[in-house]
């Protein structure tokens, strides 16, 4: 784990969010193209995690922890 003096930059810190968003968009996009899109399964469950993650990141004063 990095100390505060060696904190990775914004891009590195947010790699997990970027990766999940890419998977999210690709999967949902293909489901839309194949006419199998389902909001309840494809978007909402992981979407809630993405929203919670962003809210915590934005409201956290210290931003300690992983990434």
């Amino acid at each position, binding site marked *: 784990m990095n100390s505060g003096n060696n904190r990775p930059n914004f891009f590195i810190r947010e790699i997990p969010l970027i990766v999940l968003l890419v998977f999210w968009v690709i999967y*949902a996009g293909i489901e839309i193209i194949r006419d199998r899109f389902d909001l309840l399964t494809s978007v909402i469950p992981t979407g809630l995690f993405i929203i919670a993650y962003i809210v915590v990141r934005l409201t956290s004063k210290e931003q300690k922890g992983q990434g």
Partner: protein
Amino acid sequence: MDTFLALELIALALTGLLIWHSARTRGVTFTWMFFLGGAFLGLVRENVVAQVAALNLYSYNPATFHLWIGAAPLILMVFWSYTIYLALTFSEVIVGGNLIGGKRKVRVILLAMVFMASYACLNEAFASIYPLVLWKFKPTLTIWGGTPAMVLWGYAGMALIFLTTLLLVYKLRIRTIYRVMVFCASVVVMIPLHLLWIAIFRLATSAIG
């Protein structure tokens, strides 16, 4: 280029980004354990599941995947690693915990299980389109075009087993190389545990059905 081959390569590249993130934020020991152990787990487990007929679970669709190791698609070498890594990182950030540091580790693991079930919703809905998996049994409860409902339970259980084993092995007071080796070897325990976890769900739902 075939769409699904492109997806396989994208998944490998994105896993590379996660390995970079892990090495920078969690250290080299953790990263070797997590991603090498995850690769062993994926490789061995998926070959066992696909080839052992007695398990009566599933095999992978040869018409869809391009890159293989035995009876398992190459992508399964990184699949469990990247999904559980995302589950761990999102859960740690949301509950303000740290699994290895011991801060709120139970809440981190529980939320990681919920994340995995949520990710299963996304992934299995997508998987049912091609389909990626050929089911060998007729499940009692199904979702999305015949996908057994047990996949949500299965994903959650994998996070529980993987993260708990990782935590136990990481705390061993032995050299880094031995910790990595012990964690890789522990797949022989994790796989039966996970198959047992799935069997419990199948047994419970067949009783209901």
